């Protein structure tokens, strides 16, 4: 097992969430758990698997990547959605972003830019 030279990757980590999507993903986990979609033990086990797969060089900065991958996996496993449905929806949002002029709120079903 190799450990980086410095144990503490950064002291400049006082903000709770580095980016808004991290907060949204985190809230999604709590809300789904709060409504009984999965137990916290199930959640911790699934997240642990994801983090273990990241290996010994994981410096903690990709934590929310792991969290998002875990909630996606769990949502499919619990049949809250399906892989295809999720993929279709991602494509729809990607299209909506491309179709929305800068500065406007992005909404699904946005018409292509002229």
């Amino acid at each position, binding site marked *: 097992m190799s*450990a980086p030279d*410095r*144990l*503490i*990757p*950064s002291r400049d*980590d*006082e903000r*709770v*969430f580095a*980016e*808004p*999507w991290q*907060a*949204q*993903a*985190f*809230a*999604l986990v*709590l*809300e*789904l758990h*709060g*409504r009984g*979609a999965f137990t*916290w*033990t199930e*959640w*911790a*086990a699934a*997240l*642990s698997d994801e*983090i*273990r797969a*990241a*290996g*010994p*060089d*994981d*410096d*903690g*900065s990709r*934590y*929310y*990547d792991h969290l*998002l991958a875990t*909630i*996606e996996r769990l*949502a499919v496993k619990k049949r*809250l*959605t399906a892989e295809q*449905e*999720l993929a279709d*929806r*991602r494509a*729809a*949002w*990607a299209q909506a*972003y491309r179709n929305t002029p800068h500065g406007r709120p992005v909404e*699904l079903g946005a018409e292509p830019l002229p």
Partner: protein
Amino acid sequence: MALRVKALESLMVEKGLVDPAALDALVDHFEHKVGPRNGARVVARAWTDPAYKTRLLENATDAIAELGYQGGQGEHMVVVENTPAVHNLVVCTLCSCYPWPVLGLPPVWYKSAPYRSRAVIDPRGAIAEFGTELPDEVEVRVWDSTAEVRYLVLPQRPAGTEGLDEDALAALVTRDGMIGTARL
């Protein structure tokens, strides 16, 4: 990543599995309402009120709830006390289990693989990297937080603080002191 969250969230909202207003409230709660200041209040109370300290060490969950701090990831709390002979260090070796109601969300390093492994293999060395050299005669105990049990360190009250009130004492308590990577 933002797109992926949007995709999952919008599906869950449409299916009625989550409430968008509840999601916003959760984000606000974790960004603004919980943090190590809560834990510092618990520590300061334990330093000034011996009866509270006894309750805290016997049933931390209830004693912490007395101050109004409870909820997700604080359902089963255990408080471990630092003494001149014993220093406690908390880690979650598997992921990131952490007592949210009293400490907020964990810092990035707490979730890193180096901390998660070093805290167990070489706790003294890990603590030293945070700037605290523990004397050889001090025993180090490591506590592995899980989805079921979460630990909070009750640091030793610093010398020379006899005249301070609870508010002033709470200001001395740091997050790292309550994880155990620092000694106050």
